[in-house]
C-alpha cells in the first residue's frame, strides 16, 4: 500500500516517456524535483509525461508537473502530457496561465540608516511628550470640573480601582516587604555584629525601610500589577472601539477612565506603603531577634526613639507622585494602542518599563530635595 502511494517520477526507456506514480499532493512532494533533475534527459526531441498512475493530484502536484515541463523546455524538448484526467489538465492549465505572476517577489522593506532612525525616534518621543501633556491638561480640567459637581467623580469606579489596585495587592506587598526586611537586617547585621553594635540595627534598617525600601518596593509592585492592567484595559477598549463609542456619546474617556484610576491609586498608594512599612519592620525584627539577639520590644523602642514618625512620613510623601506616575503612564500607553492585538502587548511592556524608569528617577529627585532640605 505504502509503495503504491509513494510519489515517483521515472523514465521508462521502452516507452520513451516519463511515468508519474503515487500521490502528487503537497505533503508528498519533498525531494521530487531533485530526483527529477537526476534523471538523464532523453535524447529524443519530443518527450511524453504519462500521468496514468497518479492517484492523488492537487495544485502542488500541478505546480510540480509544470516545473518538470519547464526544465525539459529549457533543454529544448517538446513536452506532451498523456493520460491525465480532464480535471487534472484543467488544474495544470490554470497554474500554467498564472505562472509568470508566481515568480513575483514582494519588495523587501529596506531598513533606514541610523540617522533616520534616531530622528524618527526623537520625533516619536516628542509626540509622546506632547500626548502626555495633553492628557495631564485634560485630566486637570476634568478634576476641577468634578470638584464643582461631585457626581462626576464616579465613586463606584474609584472604589473598584481601590479594590483591584490596592486590596488585591496586599498579600504580595506584605510577603515581598517581609522578605526585604529579613534580607536587609541580615546584610546589615553581618557588619554590625563585627563591631558589637547590634542595637543599631533598629536605626539603620528603620531608616532604610521607611525612607527608601518600602516606597520603592510598593511602587515596583504597583507598576508591575496596575500600570500594565490599566494599559491592557484601555488598549483593548480602544481596539474594540469602546473609546470611540464614549466620544460619540459626548462622554470623556479621560473623565470616565483616567480620573477614577488616578484618584483610586492616589488614595490607596500611601496605605500600601504603610502596609509595606509594617511588614518590612516585622521582617527586620524577626531577623534581629534570631541573628543579633535584639528583642522585639527593644527593637521597637529604639525604632521610635532614633527614627520616629518623621522618617516614615518622608517615605509616605512619595506616594502621590508614584501614584500619578503609574496611573498616567498606564493610561497614556493604553490610549496609544493602535488597532492590533500585538500592539497591546508591546504597549503594556512599554508602560511597565516607563513607569519603573520614572519611579526611580522620581525617587532620586526626592533624595536630592530631601538632602537640600537637610532632612
Amino acid at each position: 500500500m505504502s509503495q503504491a502511494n509513494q510519489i515517483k517520477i521515472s523514465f521508462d526507456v521502452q516507452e520513451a516517456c516519463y511515468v508519474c506514480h503515487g500521490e502528487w499532493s503537497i505533503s508528498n512532494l519533498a525531494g521530487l524535483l531533485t530526483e527529477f533533475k537526476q534523471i538523464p534527459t532523453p535524447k529524443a526531441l519530443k518527450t511524453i509525461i504519462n500521468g496514468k498512475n497518479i492517484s492523488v493530484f492537487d495544485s502542488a502536484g500541478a505546480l510540480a508537473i509544470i516545473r518538470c515541463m519547464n526544465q525539459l523546455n529549457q533543454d529544448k524538448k517538446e513536452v506532451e502530457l498523456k493520460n491525465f484526467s480532464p480535471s487534472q489538465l484543467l488544474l495544470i492549465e490554470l497554474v500554467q496561465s498564472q505562472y509568470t505572476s508566481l515568480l513575483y517577489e514582494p519588495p523587501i522593506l529596506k531598513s533606514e540608516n541610523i540617522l533616520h532612525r534616531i530622528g524618527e525616534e526623537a520625533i516619536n518621543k516628542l509626540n509622546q511628550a506632547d500626548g502626555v501633556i495633553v492628557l495631564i491638561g485634560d485630566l486637570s480640567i476634568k478634576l476641577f470640573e468634578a470638584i464643582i459637581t461631585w457626581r462626576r467623580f464616579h465613586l463606584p469606579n474609584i472604589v473598584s480601582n481601590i479594590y483591584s489596585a490596592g486590596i488585591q495587592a496586599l498579600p504580595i506587598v506584605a510577603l515581598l516587604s517581609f522578605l526585604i526586611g529579613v534580607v536587609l537586617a541580615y546584610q546589615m547585621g553581618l557588619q554590625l555584629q563585627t563591631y558589637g553594635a547590634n542595637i543599631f540595627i533598629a536605626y539603620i534598617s528603620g531608616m532604610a525601610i521607611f525612607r527608601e525600601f518600602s516606597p520603592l518596593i510598593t511602587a515596583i509592585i504597583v507598576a508591575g500589577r496596575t500600570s500594565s492592567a490599566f494599559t491592557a484595559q484601555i488598549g483593548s477598549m480602544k481596539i474594540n472601539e469602546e473609546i470611540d463609542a464614549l466620544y460619540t456619546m459626548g462622554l470623556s474617556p479621560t473623565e470616565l477612565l483616567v480620573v477614577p484610576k488616578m484618584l483610586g491609586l492616589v488614595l490607596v498608594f500611601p496605605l500600601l506603603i504603610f502596609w509595606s512599612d509594617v511588614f518590612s519592620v516585622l521582617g527586620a525584627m524577626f531577623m534581629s531577634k534570631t541573628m543579633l539577639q535584639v528583642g522585639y520590644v527593644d527593637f521597637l523602642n529604639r525604632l521610635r526613639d532614633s527614627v520616629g514618625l518623621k522618617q516614615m512620613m518622608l517615605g509616605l510623601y512619595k506616594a502621590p507622585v508614584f501614584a500619578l506616575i503609574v496611573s498616567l503612564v498606564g493610561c497614556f500607553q493604553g490610549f496609544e494602542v493602535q488597532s492590533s492585538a500585538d500592539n497591546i502587548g508591546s504597549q503594556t511592556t512599554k508602560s511597565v518599563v516607563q513607569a519603573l524608569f520614572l519611579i526611580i528617577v522620581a525617587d532620586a529627585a526626592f533624595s536630592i530635595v530631601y538632602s537640600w532640605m537637610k532632612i
Partner: protein
Amino acid sequence: MPKSAPPPIIEIQGLKNYLGGAWVHSDVNLTVNKGEILAIIGGSGSGKTTILRSLLMLQKPTAGLIKMFGQDIKSLSAEDTDTLRRRWGMMFQHSALFSAMTVLENILFPMTEFTKLDKQFTHELAMLKIKLVGLPKEAAGKYPAELSGGMQRRAAAARAIAMDPELLFLDEPTTGLDPHSARQFDDLILFLRDTLNLTIVMVSHDFESLKKTSDRIAFVGKGKILSVEPIAELMKNPDPLIADYFSNL
C-alpha cells in the same frame, strides 16, 4: 481500490452539546458528501458555529458520534488527529490572519511547518494560492491590516487552502462584505470547489450567497437539524421555524 459509493466526508450522529448551563444541541444528525457545498443556517444562537467548532475539534461534544473522512474523531491518536487536521482548511469569520505576518508569510506558514519542500517551490505555491483567490500579486507583501475587508477574506481563504485540503470550512464568508464583493466571493467559492475538488461546509446568513453557491442547506433549530434540502425546497418547508426564517426576506 473498490469502486463502491464513496463514504461521506462528514457524518454526525446524535451530537449533543451542553454549554453554559443550557443544551445547545439535543440531537444533531448530518452527513456531508464529497464535492458538495453544504450550508448551515438557522436563527442566531441556534448553535451553527458550535456545530462547526465540534467538527473542527475545537470543542469536545457532550455526546454523539462524529466521523470525519470515515474516522471517528474520538478514537483517534494524537498523531492521527494532526494528520486529520491537515486535511481540512478553515476560514474564520474575522479572517484570523496572523497580524504580524504579511499575506505571503501567512500562507507560507503552514507549508513550511508541515512540509520539507524547498523555498522556491513553496513561494510559487503560495503565490499560486494568492492568484487563485483573486488577489493581485502585490497583495503578497502587504500586512493584513493594510488590506480591505474583502481582500482580507480572500487572503484568509488563500491560507485555508494553503495545504490543498479536501474539506473547507467557511464561517460566514460573505457577512460584512459589500454586495459586489460578496457576489465575487460566491464565485470564488464555486471556482475553488470546481478546480480543487473541494467539499465545502459553510455557515452563512447571506441569502443571495446561499442561493448561488449551496447544493444543500441544513437548517438548525431547537437543538436539531430540522431539515437538509436544496434552498428551493427548504423555502417551501412548512415547519414554522423555517417558514418564519424565510418570511422576512
